[in-house]
Protein backbone atom coordinates (compact mmCIF):
# COMPACT_ATOMS: atom_id res chain seq x y z
CA UNK A 1 0.00 0.00 0.00
CA UNK A 2 1.57 3.28 -1.00
CA UNK A 3 0.51 5.14 2.11
CA UNK A 4 2.35 8.37 1.54
CA UNK A 5 0.80 8.65 -1.91
CA UNK A 6 -2.68 9.23 -0.48
CA UNK A 7 -2.35 11.70 2.33
CA UNK A 8 -5.84 13.21 2.13
CA UNK A 9 -7.98 10.23 2.99
CA UNK A 10 -11.01 10.37 5.18
CA UNK A 11 -11.31 8.05 8.12
CA UNK A 12 -13.93 6.00 6.33
CA UNK A 13 -11.72 5.57 3.32
CA UNK A 14 -8.85 4.72 5.55
CA UNK A 15 -10.93 2.04 7.26
CA UNK A 16 -12.01 0.70 3.92
CA UNK A 17 -8.43 0.47 2.82
CA UNK A 18 -7.47 -1.22 6.02
CA UNK A 19 -10.21 -3.76 5.54
CA UNK A 20 -8.95 -4.47 2.04
CA UNK A 21 -5.56 -4.74 3.52
CA UNK A 22 -6.77 -7.36 5.92
CA UNK A 23 -8.44 -9.24 3.12
CA UNK A 24 -5.30 -8.93 1.06
CA UNK A 25 -3.26 -10.08 4.01
CA UNK A 26 -5.30 -13.19 4.54
CA UNK A 27 -5.29 -13.93 0.84
CA UNK A 28 -1.58 -13.49 0.72
CA UNK A 29 -1.27 -15.70 3.75
CA UNK A 30 -3.24 -18.45 2.07
CA UNK A 31 -1.27 -17.90 -1.11
CA UNK A 32 2.04 -18.12 0.67
CA UNK A 33 0.93 -20.97 2.90
CA UNK A 34 -0.12 -23.03 -0.09
CA UNK A 35 3.05 -22.37 -2.00
CA UNK A 36 5.33 -22.94 0.93
CA UNK A 37 3.79 -26.28 1.77
CA UNK A 38 3.79 -27.62 -1.74
CA UNK A 39 7.28 -27.05 -3.01
CA UNK A 40 7.86 -29.59 -5.73
CA UNK A 41 11.51 -29.87 -6.65
CA UNK A 42 12.77 -30.62 -10.11
CA UNK A 43 14.05 -34.18 -10.36
CA UNK A 44 17.47 -32.93 -11.28
CA UNK A 45 20.70 -34.26 -9.91
CA UNK A 46 24.11 -33.11 -10.95
CA UNK A 47 26.75 -34.78 -8.84
CA UNK A 48 27.57 -35.99 -5.36
CA UNK A 49 25.05 -33.72 -3.66
CA UNK A 50 22.31 -35.31 -5.74
CA UNK A 51 22.87 -38.52 -3.81
CA UNK A 52 22.30 -36.67 -0.55
CA UNK A 53 19.28 -35.04 -2.15
CA UNK A 54 17.95 -38.50 -3.00
CA UNK A 55 18.81 -39.62 0.51
CA UNK A 56 16.77 -36.71 1.84
CA UNK A 57 13.76 -38.05 0.00
CA UNK A 58 14.36 -41.55 1.31
CA UNK A 59 12.83 -43.16 4.35
CA UNK A 60 15.31 -41.94 6.96
CA UNK A 61 14.81 -38.25 6.28
CA UNK A 62 11.63 -38.23 4.21
CA UNK A 63 11.26 -34.89 2.53
CA UNK A 64 7.64 -35.95 1.92
CA UNK A 65 6.78 -34.73 5.38
CA UNK A 66 7.09 -31.21 4.01
CA UNK A 67 5.03 -32.09 0.96
CA UNK A 68 8.10 -31.97 -1.26
CA UNK A 69 8.59 -35.56 -2.29
CA UNK A 70 6.94 -34.96 -5.64
CA UNK A 71 10.16 -34.74 -7.63
CA UNK A 72 8.83 -33.73 -11.00
CA UNK A 73 10.99 -34.77 -13.92
CA UNK A 74 9.60 -32.04 -16.16
CA UNK A 75 10.57 -28.45 -15.34
CA UNK A 76 7.08 -27.33 -16.27
CA UNK A 77 5.66 -28.75 -13.07
CA UNK A 78 8.47 -27.92 -10.70
CA UNK A 79 8.66 -25.06 -8.23
CA UNK A 80 12.16 -25.52 -6.96
CA UNK A 81 15.44 -26.08 -8.71
CA UNK A 82 17.88 -27.77 -6.38
CA UNK A 83 21.25 -27.30 -8.02
CA UNK A 84 22.78 -30.30 -6.38
CA UNK A 85 26.36 -30.54 -7.43
CA UNK A 86 29.04 -29.16 -9.66
CA UNK A 87 27.79 -27.11 -12.56
CA UNK A 88 30.30 -27.46 -15.32
CA UNK A 89 30.60 -24.97 -18.09
CA UNK A 90 29.30 -27.58 -20.46
CA UNK A 91 26.22 -28.04 -18.28
CA UNK A 92 25.58 -24.40 -17.37
CA UNK A 93 23.52 -23.54 -20.47
CA UNK A 94 21.24 -26.48 -19.82
CA UNK A 95 20.74 -25.45 -16.20
CA UNK A 96 19.82 -21.92 -17.23
CA UNK A 97 17.50 -23.33 -19.87
CA UNK A 98 15.81 -25.56 -17.31
CA UNK A 99 15.43 -22.58 -15.02
CA UNK A 100 13.83 -20.60 -17.85
CA UNK A 101 11.47 -23.46 -18.55
CA UNK A 102 10.15 -23.54 -15.02
CA UNK A 103 6.96 -21.56 -14.45
CA UNK A 104 6.94 -18.77 -11.91
CA UNK A 105 6.87 -18.61 -8.92
CA UNK A 106 10.08 -20.62 -8.79
CA UNK A 107 12.94 -20.87 -6.39
CA UNK A 108 16.48 -22.07 -6.52
CA UNK A 109 18.54 -23.75 -3.85
CA UNK A 110 22.27 -24.00 -4.40
CA UNK A 111 23.10 -27.18 -2.57
CA UNK A 112 26.70 -27.79 -1.70
CA UNK A 113 29.96 -26.03 -2.22
CA UNK A 114 30.18 -26.70 -5.95
CA UNK A 115 26.81 -25.18 -6.74
CA UNK A 116 27.56 -22.12 -4.65
CA UNK A 117 31.05 -21.30 -5.80
CA UNK A 118 32.51 -24.20 -7.71
CA UNK A 119 33.67 -25.54 -4.37
CA UNK A 120 36.71 -27.78 -4.32
CA UNK A 121 36.61 -27.93 -8.10
CA UNK A 122 36.56 -24.18 -8.62
CA UNK A 123 40.06 -24.10 -10.03
CA UNK A 124 39.01 -26.44 -12.80
CA UNK A 125 38.89 -25.13 -16.35
CA UNK A 126 35.45 -26.55 -17.02
CA UNK A 127 33.80 -25.71 -13.71
CA UNK A 128 31.43 -22.82 -13.34
CA UNK A 129 32.28 -20.88 -10.20
CA UNK A 130 28.80 -20.93 -8.80
CA UNK A 131 25.44 -21.15 -10.46
CA UNK A 132 24.58 -17.69 -9.15
CA UNK A 133 26.62 -16.28 -12.00
CA UNK A 134 23.67 -17.04 -14.24
CA UNK A 135 20.50 -17.54 -12.21
CA UNK A 136 19.29 -16.01 -8.96
CA UNK A 137 19.69 -18.30 -5.99
CA UNK A 138 17.41 -18.07 -2.97
CA UNK A 139 19.05 -20.35 -0.46
CA UNK A 140 22.68 -21.43 -0.18
CA UNK A 141 23.44 -24.64 1.68
CA UNK A 142 27.16 -24.99 2.29
CA UNK A 143 28.66 -28.40 2.80
CA UNK A 144 30.44 -30.95 0.70
CA UNK A 145 27.99 -32.53 0.47
CA UNK A 146 25.52 -31.08 2.96
CA UNK A 147 23.87 -33.72 5.09
CA UNK A 148 20.29 -34.54 4.13
CA UNK A 149 19.25 -32.77 7.30
CA UNK A 150 21.02 -29.69 6.04
CA UNK A 151 18.94 -29.86 2.88
CA UNK A 152 15.80 -30.19 4.96
CA UNK A 153 16.95 -27.18 6.95
CA UNK A 154 17.44 -25.31 3.71
CA UNK A 155 13.96 -26.28 2.64
CA UNK A 156 12.53 -24.99 5.91
CA UNK A 157 14.42 -21.74 5.39
CA UNK A 158 12.96 -21.52 1.90
CA UNK A 159 9.47 -22.07 3.29
CA UNK A 160 10.10 -19.24 5.73
CA UNK A 161 11.20 -17.05 2.88
CA UNK A 162 8.10 -17.88 0.85
CA UNK A 163 5.85 -17.17 3.80
CA UNK A 164 7.47 -13.78 4.23
CA UNK A 165 6.77 -12.66 0.70
CA UNK A 166 4.36 -9.80 0.07
CA UNK A 167 1.84 -9.80 -2.73
CA UNK A 168 2.21 -6.18 -3.68
CA UNK A 169 4.41 -3.20 -3.25
CA UNK A 170 8.04 -2.69 -4.10
CA UNK A 171 9.10 -5.66 -1.99
CA UNK A 172 7.05 -8.08 -4.06
CA UNK A 173 8.89 -11.09 -5.36
CA UNK A 174 10.19 -11.30 -8.88
CA UNK A 175 7.23 -13.11 -10.36
CA UNK A 176 4.74 -10.49 -9.19
CA UNK A 177 6.58 -7.56 -10.67
CA UNK A 178 4.88 -6.59 -13.87
CA UNK A 179 7.88 -5.65 -15.98
CA UNK A 180 9.72 -8.91 -15.45
CA UNK A 181 9.58 -11.58 -18.10
CA UNK A 182 11.62 -13.91 -15.88
CA UNK A 183 13.84 -15.28 -18.59
CA UNK A 184 17.55 -15.32 -18.22
CA UNK A 185 19.99 -15.28 -21.11
CA UNK A 186 21.44 -18.69 -21.82
CA UNK A 187 25.23 -18.61 -22.21
CA UNK A 188 26.77 -20.05 -25.30
CA UNK A 189 29.85 -22.17 -25.77
CA UNK A 190 32.79 -20.06 -26.76
CA UNK A 191 36.25 -20.99 -27.90
CA UNK A 192 37.79 -20.82 -24.45
CA UNK A 193 34.96 -20.18 -22.04
CA UNK A 194 31.25 -19.59 -21.86
CA UNK A 195 30.04 -16.45 -23.57
CA UNK A 196 29.22 -14.44 -21.61
CA UNK A 197 30.99 -15.99 -18.61
CA UNK A 198 28.53 -14.39 -16.19
CA UNK A 199 25.22 -12.60 -16.18
CA UNK A 200 25.95 -9.18 -14.68
CA UNK A 201 22.29 -8.64 -13.87
CA UNK A 202 22.43 -11.57 -11.46
CA UNK A 203 26.03 -11.80 -10.37
CA UNK A 204 27.11 -8.77 -8.37
CA UNK A 205 29.93 -9.66 -6.01
CA UNK A 206 31.00 -7.07 -3.48
CA UNK A 207 34.36 -5.50 -4.01
CA UNK A 208 37.05 -7.25 -2.05
CA UNK A 209 39.67 -5.21 -0.33
CA UNK A 210 42.72 -6.98 0.88
CA UNK A 211 46.09 -5.80 2.07
CA UNK A 212 49.00 -6.88 0.00
CA UNK A 213 50.01 -10.27 1.25
CA UNK A 214 53.57 -10.58 0.13
Amino acid at each position, binding site marked *: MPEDAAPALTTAERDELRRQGILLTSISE*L*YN*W*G*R*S*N*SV*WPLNFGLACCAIEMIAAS*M*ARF*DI*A*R*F*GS*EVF*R*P*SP*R*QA*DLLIVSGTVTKKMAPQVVRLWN*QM*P*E*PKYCIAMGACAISGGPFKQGYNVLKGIDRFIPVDIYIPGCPPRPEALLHGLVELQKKIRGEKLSGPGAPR*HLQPDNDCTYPVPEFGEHDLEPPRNPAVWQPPILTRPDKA
Partner: protein
Amino acid sequence: MPPAPIFATLDPDRAFLERAPLLVRDFVTGLFPPSLQWLAGNLLAVVVIVLFFASLFALLTLAERKILGRIQNRPGPNRTGPAGLLQPLADAVKTLVKEDIVPRAADQVLHFLAPVVLVSLALMAFAVLPYGRHLVPVELDAAVLYFFAAGAATELAVFMAGWASRNKYSLLAAMRALAQLISYELPLLLSVVPVVMLAGTLSTTGIVAAQAGWTYGVIPHWHVLTPWGAAGFLLFFVSALAESNRSPFDLPEAESELIAGHLTEYSGFKYALFFMAEYFGMTALCGMGVTLFLGGWQAPCAFLEFIPSYAWFFAKLLLLLGVFMWIRGTLPRLRIDQLTRFAWKFLVPLALINLGTAAFWQLSAGWSGPALQLARWLVALALVAGPFTLLGRRLSAGVAPRTYRYAA
Protein backbone atom coordinates in the same frame (compact mmCIF):
# COMPACT_ATOMS: atom_id res chain seq x y z
CA MET B 1 -43.13 -31.58 -18.37
CA PRO B 2 -43.36 -33.96 -15.43
CA PRO B 3 -40.26 -34.19 -13.26
CA ALA B 4 -38.08 -36.96 -14.56
CA PRO B 5 -37.14 -39.61 -12.03
CA ILE B 6 -33.55 -38.73 -11.33
CA PHE B 7 -33.22 -41.26 -8.59
CA ALA B 8 -35.32 -44.32 -8.05
CA THR B 9 -38.28 -43.79 -5.76
CA LEU B 10 -37.88 -43.88 -2.06
CA ASP B 11 -38.15 -47.18 -0.28
CA PRO B 12 -40.06 -46.48 2.93
CA ASP B 13 -38.77 -49.58 4.75
CA ARG B 14 -35.29 -48.22 4.92
CA ALA B 15 -33.53 -46.69 7.87
CA PHE B 16 -33.00 -42.97 8.17
CA LEU B 17 -29.34 -43.11 7.18
CA GLU B 18 -30.19 -45.00 4.08
CA ARG B 19 -32.72 -42.38 3.14
CA ALA B 20 -30.71 -39.37 4.25
CA PRO B 21 -29.25 -38.43 0.86
CA LEU B 22 -32.65 -38.64 -0.75
CA LEU B 23 -34.21 -36.55 1.97
CA VAL B 24 -31.61 -33.88 1.45
CA ARG B 25 -32.21 -33.96 -2.27
CA ASP B 26 -35.92 -33.67 -1.84
CA PHE B 27 -35.48 -30.80 0.57
CA VAL B 28 -33.28 -28.85 -1.82
CA THR B 29 -35.36 -29.49 -4.90
CA GLY B 30 -38.41 -28.54 -2.87
CA LEU B 31 -37.02 -25.06 -2.58
CA PHE B 32 -37.46 -24.57 -6.30
CA PRO B 33 -40.73 -24.03 -8.16
CA PRO B 34 -42.15 -27.35 -9.39
CA SER B 35 -41.52 -26.57 -13.02
CA LEU B 36 -37.78 -26.25 -12.31
CA GLN B 37 -37.45 -29.19 -9.97
CA TRP B 38 -36.18 -31.56 -12.64
CA LEU B 39 -33.48 -29.10 -13.50
CA ALA B 40 -32.65 -28.50 -9.87
CA GLY B 41 -32.45 -32.21 -9.23
CA ASN B 42 -30.11 -32.73 -12.16
CA LEU B 43 -27.94 -29.79 -11.27
CA LEU B 44 -27.81 -30.92 -7.69
CA ALA B 45 -26.63 -34.33 -8.80
CA VAL B 46 -23.95 -32.76 -10.95
CA VAL B 47 -22.78 -30.42 -8.23
CA VAL B 48 -22.73 -33.14 -5.62
CA ILE B 49 -20.81 -35.50 -7.86
CA VAL B 50 -18.26 -32.89 -8.86
CA LEU B 51 -17.74 -31.68 -5.33
CA PHE B 52 -17.72 -35.11 -3.82
CA PHE B 53 -15.32 -36.65 -6.28
CA ALA B 54 -13.12 -33.60 -6.34
CA SER B 55 -12.66 -33.88 -2.60
CA LEU B 56 -12.28 -37.63 -2.93
CA PHE B 57 -9.56 -36.90 -5.48
CA ALA B 58 -7.85 -34.62 -2.99
CA LEU B 59 -8.04 -37.26 -0.33
CA LEU B 60 -6.85 -39.95 -2.71
CA THR B 61 -3.73 -38.04 -3.65
CA LEU B 62 -2.95 -37.69 0.01
CA ALA B 63 -3.82 -41.32 0.68
CA GLU B 64 -1.62 -42.43 -2.18
CA ARG B 65 1.32 -40.45 -0.88
CA LYS B 66 0.74 -41.76 2.61
CA ILE B 67 0.30 -45.38 1.56
CA LEU B 68 3.37 -45.21 -0.65
CA GLY B 69 5.17 -43.66 2.27
CA ARG B 70 4.12 -46.39 4.63
CA ILE B 71 5.10 -49.08 2.13
CA GLN B 72 8.47 -47.38 1.98
CA ASN B 73 8.84 -47.17 5.77
CA ARG B 74 8.20 -43.45 6.11
CA PRO B 75 5.24 -41.32 7.13
CA GLY B 76 4.50 -39.32 4.01
CA PRO B 77 3.11 -35.77 4.16
CA ASN B 78 2.32 -35.02 7.78
CA ARG B 79 2.91 -31.42 8.61
CA THR B 80 0.54 -29.40 6.47
CA GLY B 81 -2.46 -29.18 8.74
CA PRO B 82 -3.26 -31.90 11.26
CA ALA B 83 -1.53 -35.12 10.15
CA GLY B 84 -0.97 -33.59 6.77
CA LEU B 85 -4.67 -33.48 5.92
CA LEU B 86 -4.41 -30.04 4.35
CA GLN B 87 -1.64 -31.12 1.97
CA PRO B 88 -4.02 -31.41 -1.01
CA LEU B 89 -5.32 -27.93 -0.29
CA ALA B 90 -1.81 -26.54 -0.32
CA ASP B 91 -1.11 -28.33 -3.58
CA ALA B 92 -4.33 -26.95 -5.03
CA VAL B 93 -3.45 -23.39 -4.03
CA LYS B 94 0.02 -23.83 -5.42
CA THR B 95 -1.07 -25.21 -8.77
CA LEU B 96 -3.74 -22.52 -9.09
CA VAL B 97 -1.25 -19.71 -8.72
CA LYS B 98 1.45 -21.21 -10.90
CA GLU B 99 2.26 -19.58 -14.17
CA ASP B 100 0.62 -21.34 -17.09
CA ILE B 101 3.13 -21.99 -19.82
CA VAL B 102 2.08 -22.86 -23.34
CA PRO B 103 5.08 -23.65 -25.53
CA ARG B 104 5.37 -21.41 -28.54
CA ALA B 105 5.41 -24.35 -30.92
CA ALA B 106 2.41 -26.06 -29.39
CA ASP B 107 -1.01 -26.19 -30.94
CA GLN B 108 -2.57 -23.56 -28.71
CA VAL B 109 -6.17 -24.72 -29.00
CA LEU B 110 -5.61 -28.42 -28.56
CA HIS B 111 -3.09 -27.81 -25.83
CA PHE B 112 -5.80 -25.97 -23.92
CA LEU B 113 -8.63 -28.34 -24.80
CA ALA B 114 -6.94 -31.60 -23.90
CA PRO B 115 -7.15 -31.30 -20.09
CA VAL B 116 -10.67 -29.90 -20.27
CA VAL B 117 -11.89 -32.70 -22.48
CA LEU B 118 -10.13 -35.26 -20.37
CA VAL B 119 -11.67 -34.14 -17.11
CA SER B 120 -15.15 -33.76 -18.51
CA LEU B 121 -15.04 -37.20 -20.11
CA ALA B 122 -13.77 -38.71 -16.90
CA LEU B 123 -16.52 -37.00 -14.97
CA MET B 124 -19.18 -38.21 -17.37
CA ALA B 125 -18.50 -41.78 -16.37
CA PHE B 126 -19.71 -41.07 -12.86
CA ALA B 127 -23.25 -40.47 -14.10
CA VAL B 128 -24.27 -44.08 -14.33
CA LEU B 129 -22.73 -45.67 -11.25
CA PRO B 130 -25.20 -46.82 -8.59
CA TYR B 131 -23.73 -45.40 -5.43
CA GLY B 132 -26.43 -46.76 -3.17
CA ARG B 133 -29.73 -48.49 -3.10
CA HIS B 134 -31.47 -45.59 -4.76
CA LEU B 135 -28.56 -43.40 -5.68
CA VAL B 136 -28.10 -43.55 -9.43
CA PRO B 137 -27.66 -40.12 -10.97
CA VAL B 138 -28.81 -41.24 -14.39
CA GLU B 139 -30.73 -44.43 -14.84
CA LEU B 140 -29.76 -45.58 -18.31
CA ASP B 141 -30.70 -48.84 -19.97
CA ALA B 142 -27.35 -48.96 -21.71
CA ALA B 143 -25.37 -47.65 -18.74
CA VAL B 144 -22.49 -50.06 -19.18
CA LEU B 145 -22.10 -49.15 -22.82
CA TYR B 146 -22.25 -45.47 -22.00
CA PHE B 147 -19.65 -45.87 -19.30
CA PHE B 148 -17.10 -47.58 -21.51
CA ALA B 149 -17.73 -45.20 -24.38
CA ALA B 150 -16.93 -42.26 -22.13
CA GLY B 151 -13.94 -44.08 -20.65
CA ALA B 152 -12.44 -44.94 -24.03
CA ALA B 153 -12.61 -41.36 -25.14
CA THR B 154 -10.27 -40.24 -22.38
CA GLU B 155 -7.34 -41.84 -24.15
CA LEU B 156 -8.08 -39.66 -27.12
CA ALA B 157 -7.66 -36.65 -24.89
CA VAL B 158 -4.32 -38.07 -23.82
CA PHE B 159 -3.36 -38.38 -27.46
CA MET B 160 -4.52 -34.84 -28.00
CA ALA B 161 -2.33 -33.60 -25.20
CA GLY B 162 0.67 -35.52 -26.43
CA TRP B 163 0.32 -34.40 -29.99
CA ALA B 164 -0.49 -30.79 -29.23
CA SER B 165 2.54 -30.30 -27.04
CA ARG B 166 5.00 -30.66 -29.94
CA ASN B 167 7.42 -32.40 -27.71
CA LYS B 168 9.09 -35.60 -28.77
CA TYR B 169 8.50 -37.26 -25.45
CA SER B 170 4.87 -36.21 -25.51
CA LEU B 171 4.52 -37.58 -28.99
CA LEU B 172 5.95 -40.93 -27.96
CA ALA B 173 3.56 -40.92 -25.03
CA ALA B 174 0.65 -40.20 -27.35
CA MET B 175 1.63 -43.13 -29.54
CA ARG B 176 1.83 -45.35 -26.52
CA ALA B 177 -1.51 -44.13 -25.21
CA LEU B 178 -3.22 -45.05 -28.46
CA ALA B 179 -1.61 -48.46 -28.59
CA GLN B 180 -2.66 -49.04 -25.04
CA LEU B 181 -6.20 -47.87 -25.74
CA ILE B 182 -6.64 -50.19 -28.66
CA SER B 183 -5.18 -53.13 -26.81
CA TYR B 184 -6.97 -52.86 -23.52
CA GLU B 185 -10.39 -51.64 -24.52
CA LEU B 186 -11.09 -55.10 -25.91
CA PRO B 187 -10.31 -57.27 -22.88
CA LEU B 188 -11.96 -54.72 -20.67
CA LEU B 189 -15.19 -54.98 -22.60
CA LEU B 190 -14.92 -58.72 -23.08
CA SER B 191 -14.52 -59.21 -19.37
CA VAL B 192 -17.75 -57.34 -18.83
CA VAL B 193 -19.77 -59.26 -21.40
CA PRO B 194 -20.36 -62.32 -19.17
CA VAL B 195 -21.79 -60.10 -16.48
CA VAL B 196 -24.14 -58.48 -18.92
CA MET B 197 -24.97 -61.87 -20.35
CA LEU B 198 -25.85 -63.41 -17.01
CA ALA B 199 -27.58 -60.39 -15.58
CA GLY B 200 -29.42 -59.99 -18.85
CA THR B 201 -29.19 -56.23 -18.74
CA LEU B 202 -26.83 -53.37 -19.56
CA SER B 203 -28.26 -51.30 -16.75
CA THR B 204 -25.99 -50.92 -13.75
CA THR B 205 -28.85 -51.07 -11.27
CA GLY B 206 -30.01 -54.24 -12.92
CA ILE B 207 -26.57 -55.76 -12.60
CA VAL B 208 -26.40 -54.90 -8.92
CA ALA B 209 -29.87 -56.29 -8.41
CA ALA B 210 -28.75 -59.53 -10.06
CA GLN B 211 -26.18 -59.95 -7.30
CA ALA B 212 -28.66 -59.52 -4.44
CA GLY B 213 -29.21 -62.08 -1.71
CA TRP B 214 -27.09 -64.35 0.41
CA THR B 215 -26.67 -68.06 0.84
CA TYR B 216 -27.18 -68.90 4.52
CA GLY B 217 -27.18 -65.14 5.08
CA VAL B 218 -23.38 -64.89 4.95
CA ILE B 219 -22.21 -65.82 1.46
CA PRO B 220 -23.25 -63.06 -0.92
CA HIS B 221 -24.24 -63.80 -4.48
CA TRP B 222 -21.62 -61.51 -5.93
CA HIS B 223 -20.25 -62.35 -9.31
CA VAL B 224 -16.72 -62.41 -8.04
CA LEU B 225 -17.55 -65.50 -5.99
CA THR B 226 -18.22 -67.62 -9.05
CA PRO B 227 -15.41 -69.10 -11.12
CA TRP B 228 -16.18 -67.05 -14.20
CA GLY B 229 -16.77 -63.99 -12.06
CA ALA B 230 -13.45 -64.30 -10.30
CA ALA B 231 -11.66 -64.68 -13.61
CA GLY B 232 -13.69 -61.88 -15.09
CA PHE B 233 -12.94 -59.65 -12.15
CA LEU B 234 -9.22 -60.26 -12.45
CA LEU B 235 -9.34 -59.56 -16.18
CA PHE B 236 -11.36 -56.46 -15.54
CA PHE B 237 -9.00 -55.32 -12.83
CA VAL B 238 -5.88 -55.76 -14.93
CA SER B 239 -7.49 -54.06 -17.89
CA ALA B 240 -8.70 -51.27 -15.64
CA LEU B 241 -5.15 -50.73 -14.43
CA ALA B 242 -4.08 -50.38 -18.03
CA GLU B 243 -7.08 -48.29 -18.99
CA SER B 244 -6.44 -45.78 -16.23
CA ASN B 245 -2.70 -45.67 -17.02
CA ARG B 246 -1.69 -46.87 -13.61
CA SER B 247 1.41 -48.80 -12.66
CA PRO B 248 2.47 -51.28 -14.03
CA PHE B 249 0.85 -49.98 -17.19
CA ASP B 250 1.67 -46.30 -16.77
CA LEU B 251 3.48 -46.19 -20.07
CA PRO B 252 2.17 -42.90 -21.45
CA GLU B 253 3.61 -40.93 -18.57
CA ALA B 254 6.49 -43.33 -17.88
CA GLU B 255 8.59 -41.06 -15.77
CA SER B 256 11.87 -42.85 -16.11
CA GLU B 257 11.66 -43.03 -19.88
CA LEU B 258 9.57 -40.18 -21.20
CA ILE B 259 10.10 -37.49 -18.53
CA ALA B 260 6.39 -37.01 -17.89
CA GLY B 261 5.03 -38.31 -21.17
CA HIS B 262 2.03 -36.41 -22.42
CA LEU B 263 2.19 -34.13 -19.38
CA THR B 264 5.71 -32.93 -20.12
CA GLU B 265 4.66 -29.53 -21.41
CA TYR B 266 1.81 -28.89 -19.00
CA SER B 267 2.21 -26.64 -16.02
CA GLY B 268 0.07 -25.19 -13.29
CA PHE B 269 -3.59 -25.95 -13.21
CA LYS B 270 -3.71 -27.78 -16.51
CA TYR B 271 -1.34 -30.29 -15.06
CA ALA B 272 -3.54 -30.57 -12.00
CA LEU B 273 -6.50 -31.25 -14.28
CA PHE B 274 -4.66 -34.14 -15.87
CA PHE B 275 -3.84 -35.47 -12.50
CA MET B 276 -7.45 -35.11 -11.47
CA ALA B 277 -8.67 -36.87 -14.57
CA GLU B 278 -6.35 -39.78 -13.90
CA TYR B 279 -7.82 -40.18 -10.45
CA PHE B 280 -11.36 -39.69 -11.70
CA GLY B 281 -10.84 -42.37 -14.30
CA MET B 282 -9.36 -44.70 -11.75
CA THR B 283 -12.21 -44.07 -9.32
CA ALA B 284 -14.85 -44.54 -11.98
CA LEU B 285 -13.32 -47.81 -13.17
CA CYS B 286 -13.10 -49.07 -9.61
CA GLY B 287 -16.70 -48.06 -9.09
CA MET B 288 -17.65 -49.99 -12.18
CA GLY B 289 -15.68 -52.98 -10.96
CA VAL B 290 -17.50 -52.84 -7.66
CA THR B 291 -20.81 -52.62 -9.45
CA LEU B 292 -20.14 -55.43 -11.89
CA PHE B 293 -18.38 -57.95 -9.73
CA LEU B 294 -18.41 -56.99 -6.06
CA GLY B 295 -22.14 -56.69 -5.62
CA GLY B 296 -22.29 -52.92 -5.94
CA TRP B 297 -23.77 -51.42 -2.81
CA GLN B 298 -24.85 -54.77 -1.38
CA ALA B 299 -23.68 -55.64 2.08
CA PRO B 300 -21.50 -58.76 2.29
CA CYS B 301 -23.72 -60.43 4.92
CA ALA B 302 -27.38 -60.10 5.71
CA PHE B 303 -26.81 -58.90 9.25
CA LEU B 304 -24.60 -56.06 8.07
CA GLU B 305 -27.41 -54.51 6.09
CA PHE B 306 -28.03 -51.91 8.75
CA ILE B 307 -25.02 -50.05 7.45
CA PRO B 308 -26.28 -47.82 4.64
CA SER B 309 -25.75 -49.09 1.13
CA TYR B 310 -23.69 -46.14 -0.07
CA ALA B 311 -21.25 -46.78 2.76
CA TRP B 312 -20.75 -50.29 1.45
CA PHE B 313 -20.22 -49.00 -2.03
CA PHE B 314 -17.58 -46.55 -0.97
CA ALA B 315 -15.92 -49.03 1.34
CA LYS B 316 -15.49 -51.42 -1.57
CA LEU B 317 -14.44 -48.58 -3.83
CA LEU B 318 -11.76 -47.42 -1.41
CA LEU B 319 -10.56 -50.97 -0.98
CA LEU B 320 -10.06 -51.33 -4.71
CA LEU B 321 -8.35 -47.96 -4.92
CA GLY B 322 -6.10 -49.05 -2.09
CA VAL B 323 -5.10 -52.10 -4.10
CA PHE B 324 -4.30 -49.81 -7.03
CA MET B 325 -1.94 -47.88 -4.79
CA TRP B 326 -0.47 -51.00 -3.30
CA ILE B 327 0.31 -52.27 -6.78
CA ARG B 328 1.83 -48.94 -7.67
CA GLY B 329 4.15 -49.25 -4.69
CA THR B 330 5.31 -52.69 -5.76
CA LEU B 331 5.53 -53.35 -9.44
CA PRO B 332 7.84 -52.24 -12.21
CA ARG B 333 6.50 -51.15 -15.54
CA LEU B 334 5.95 -53.24 -18.66
CA ARG B 335 7.38 -52.38 -22.04
CA ILE B 336 5.02 -51.31 -24.79
CA ASP B 337 5.38 -54.47 -26.87
CA GLN B 338 4.98 -56.63 -23.78
CA LEU B 339 1.95 -54.64 -22.84
CA THR B 340 0.24 -55.21 -26.15
CA ARG B 341 1.33 -58.83 -26.28
CA PHE B 342 -0.10 -59.33 -22.82
CA ALA B 343 -3.39 -57.89 -23.96
CA TRP B 344 -3.73 -59.69 -27.26
CA LYS B 345 -2.19 -63.04 -26.45
CA PHE B 346 -3.32 -63.44 -22.89
CA LEU B 347 -6.15 -61.24 -21.78
CA VAL B 348 -8.26 -61.39 -24.93
CA PRO B 349 -8.22 -65.21 -25.29
CA LEU B 350 -8.86 -65.60 -21.58
CA ALA B 351 -11.76 -63.19 -21.75
CA LEU B 352 -13.21 -65.08 -24.71
CA ILE B 353 -12.87 -68.41 -22.93
CA ASN B 354 -14.38 -66.82 -19.87
CA LEU B 355 -17.41 -66.04 -21.96
CA GLY B 356 -17.76 -69.76 -22.54
CA THR B 357 -17.28 -70.48 -18.85
CA ALA B 358 -20.00 -68.05 -17.99
CA ALA B 359 -22.26 -69.66 -20.58
CA PHE B 360 -21.59 -73.04 -19.06
CA TRP B 361 -22.32 -71.66 -15.61
CA GLN B 362 -25.60 -70.27 -16.86
CA LEU B 363 -26.55 -73.51 -18.62
CA SER B 364 -25.71 -75.60 -15.56
CA ALA B 365 -27.64 -73.34 -13.21
CA GLY B 366 -30.33 -75.97 -12.95
CA TRP B 367 -27.99 -78.71 -11.76
CA SER B 368 -28.93 -79.69 -8.24
CA GLY B 369 -27.52 -82.01 -5.64
CA PRO B 370 -24.04 -81.91 -4.14
CA ALA B 371 -22.47 -84.17 -6.77
CA LEU B 372 -23.70 -82.13 -9.67
CA GLN B 373 -22.86 -78.89 -7.89
CA LEU B 374 -19.34 -80.16 -7.30
CA ALA B 375 -19.05 -81.17 -10.92
CA ARG B 376 -20.30 -77.77 -11.99
CA TRP B 377 -17.67 -76.05 -9.89
CA LEU B 378 -14.90 -78.36 -11.02
CA VAL B 379 -15.68 -77.95 -14.69
CA ALA B 380 -15.95 -74.20 -14.37
CA LEU B 381 -12.73 -73.95 -12.40
CA ALA B 382 -10.96 -76.11 -14.94
CA LEU B 383 -12.27 -73.89 -17.69
CA VAL B 384 -10.75 -70.94 -15.89
CA ALA B 385 -7.51 -72.40 -14.57
CA GLY B 386 -6.57 -74.51 -17.58
CA PRO B 387 -6.38 -71.74 -20.15
CA PHE B 388 -4.77 -69.46 -17.58
CA THR B 389 -1.96 -71.93 -16.99
CA LEU B 390 -1.49 -72.79 -20.65
CA LEU B 391 -1.60 -69.24 -21.91
CA GLY B 392 0.50 -68.06 -19.01
CA ARG B 393 3.14 -70.63 -19.84
CA ARG B 394 3.21 -69.49 -23.44
CA LEU B 395 3.35 -65.88 -22.45
CA SER B 396 6.24 -66.35 -20.08
CA ALA B 397 8.15 -68.72 -22.32
CA GLY B 398 11.86 -68.09 -22.06
CA VAL B 399 11.46 -66.01 -18.93
CA ALA B 400 12.33 -67.79 -15.74
CA PRO B 401 14.53 -67.43 -12.69
CA ARG B 402 18.05 -68.65 -13.40
CA THR B 403 20.75 -70.43 -11.54
CA TYR B 404 24.28 -69.16 -11.60
CA ARG B 405 27.73 -70.65 -11.73
CA TYR B 406 30.81 -69.52 -9.89
CA ALA B 407 34.15 -68.95 -11.50
CA ALA B 408 36.91 -71.33 -10.66
